[in-house]
């Protein structure tokens, strides 16, 4: 095994260990209570408009409020209330999956034993949102409802659930013309967290990739413009001009090629760097607030004299 592969292997091993430590099942803690407080608890506020009740709240993992509209057909929507999670908390459910609040929906004027259709409508729901029903009278109180998820314009999703008076979804469990329906919309927390993780990480590549392409293109355009400008400048320089100030040059009297002072200073700096094997000082001053064109030019000339370029 070459040194290169050894290094890659050991790096991968260390990174794997770190990841393992992060994801070690023994250290996994789920649930909001890992640190003793539920800081994202939704606090719905309800308002009524005719037969429609609207809940407004900030769901978990959101900074802005959402609205959920409740309507009922086949009965009268009497009231919608919020339900404390602690009441419905069971080991088999994770609060993280319930980004929205839990609701108690009270329906009246139902023909005894008949069914009513409850509709929850919101642009916060997705096509994969399910509705989980809670009925503490059952042996397994949490169950996924047979809910119809309908996509409407403007990204609105309707969750339509059929509830039967006295049926398993009716918390009072009796055929009495009233239905107490408890539950809440459920979205998979880990699916969302992992999905958004990959999308957003590659999103950064995408954004910076687009920026890179634009910079490459604009750079080429600018380089071309600069070349054209310099060619124009050279052309105009070749024409005889009056009152041209000749740069101070160093040369000999034997007619050998003269070198201007700027090139000499740049070459001197380059030689100094090369001969002294200049090492970076502990604190390099990178502030270039005072950099003039002359300094930039000198710097480039100095870097150009670096043997790194000549060896390549």
């Amino acid at each position, binding site marked *: 095994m070459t040194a290169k592969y050894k290094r890659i292997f050991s790096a991968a091993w260390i990174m794997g260990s770190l990841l393992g430590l992060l994801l070690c099942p023994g250290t996994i*803690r789920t649930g909001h209570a890992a640190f003793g407080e539920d800081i994202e608890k939704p606090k719905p506020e309800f308002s009524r408009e005719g037969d429609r009740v609207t809940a407004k709240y900030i769901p978990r993992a959101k900074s802005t409020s959402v609205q959920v509209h409740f309507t009922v057909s086949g009965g009268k929507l009497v009231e919608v209330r919020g339900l404390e999670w602690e009441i419905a908390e069971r080991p088999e459910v994770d609060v993280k999956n319930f980004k929205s609040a839990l609701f108690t929906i009270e329906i009246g004027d139902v023909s005894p034993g008949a069914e009513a259709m409850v509709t929850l409508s919101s642009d916060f729901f997705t096509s994969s949102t399910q509705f989980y029903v809670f009925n503490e009278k059952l042996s397994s109180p949490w169950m996924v409802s047979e809910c119809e998820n309908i996509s409407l314009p403007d990204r609105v999703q309707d969750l339509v659930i059929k509830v039967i008076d006295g049926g398993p979804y009716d918390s009072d469990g009796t055929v009495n013309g009233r239905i107490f329906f408890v539950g809440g919309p459920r979205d998979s927390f880990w699916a969302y967290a992992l999905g958004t993780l990959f999308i957003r*990480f590659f999103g950064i590549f995408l954004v910076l990739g687009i920026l890179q392409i634009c910079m490459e293109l604009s750079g080429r355009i600018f380089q071309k413009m600069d070349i054209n400008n310099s060619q124009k400048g050279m052309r105009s320089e070749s024409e005889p001009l009056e009152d041209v100030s000749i740069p101070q040059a160093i040369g000999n009297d034997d007619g050998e090629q003269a070198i201007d002072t700027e090139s000499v200073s740049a070459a001197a700096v380059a030689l100094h760097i090369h001969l002294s094997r200049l090492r970076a000082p502990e604190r390099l001053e990178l502030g270039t607030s005072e950099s003039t064109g002359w300094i930039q030019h000198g710097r480039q000339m100095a870097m150009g004299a670096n043997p790194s370029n000549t060896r390549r």
Partner: protein
Amino acid sequence: MSWSHMLELIQNILITQTGIPNLAVNQVIMILIGLLFLYLAIAKEYEPLLLVPIGFGIFIVNFPLTPLMGFTEHGNPELIRAFYKYGVEWEIIPCVIFLGLGAMTDFGPLIANPKTLIIGAGAQLGVFVTYLGVLFFGFTLKEAASVGIIGGADGPTTIYLTAKLAPHLLGANALAAYSYMAMVPLIQPPIMRMMTTLEQRRIRMRQLRYVSQREKLLFPLIGCALIVLLIPAVAPLMGMFMFGNLMRECGVVKRLSDTAQNALMNIVTIFLGLSVGATMQADVFLTWKPLLIFAFGLVDFVICTFGGILTVHIMNIFLKDKINPLIGSAGVSAVPMAARVAHSEGLKADPDNWLIMHAMSPNLAGVIGSAAAAGMFIAMFQ
């Protein structure tokens, strides 16, 4: 007045108006932590510009009965609470710092070598891995995002995102970010050496092309337009950053540019440091969360460095002109510390290899990358 009355009065004064009887053990611990950070900043010169005000903020706010971070009877904020409320809570100071940073930044190396933007993106790997890791420890999504961004090694971005998503973690996150940024020369070199061979560290890169003033002038406008179009949530940070850079490059508002780079930057740094330090009161800070944040912050930095170097290795498979993988580590913002580290590691392998300007390029890309990551997180919770 009898002696008993006098004693009662003295007792009342001692209990209600002096700090000594109210000083709790956890406050003493926090005061010592404040002193530790002051020591690190003053004696070891670890990010002194930030750690001196932060350390003093921790120190002063943990004395009992101090009217600094509370509210008066009339509901007005007390001294440092006012700095915090209007500077940090309103998300003003981090953006003003970005203005100053923009005015101080020369984008020349990045414009000359735009390929390195990809390194800046790759170096955000730790941000997302840590985000996932802390979720397993019971952090909420918002908290996880604010802890993850520590690895971006960009102080103002960390503060901006944390103030927005998880203000209760502001102190711990800011302290972790600045502490690890100060420790970049200690954290990065072993990872850099582990992930590269001597041969790779000796790779010499082609000299950067000349960048005209016109290009530098147009970069903040083009860059800002593109980034804000793609991630509107990052407009406050990126807008200020690019505005600062435009002031610098346009050359006609030198006074404004100087003010943004120096006076304004220094003023807001004082208020930011004090405010952040003052959030670290004993009852909030001495819990498991800050300890976990410090642990994950370190992991975050390590993975971000790993991500940057790995990205260069992957890029080198496809590139004709190879990139020295050492500059990948500079993809974690921490300008210019990370670039300096890459440069000095390069010099150890080859004393003639000048990497500093090449490393500045991914370093600047890292600033944009971490701001983009912050924007992604903000957008996620909207």
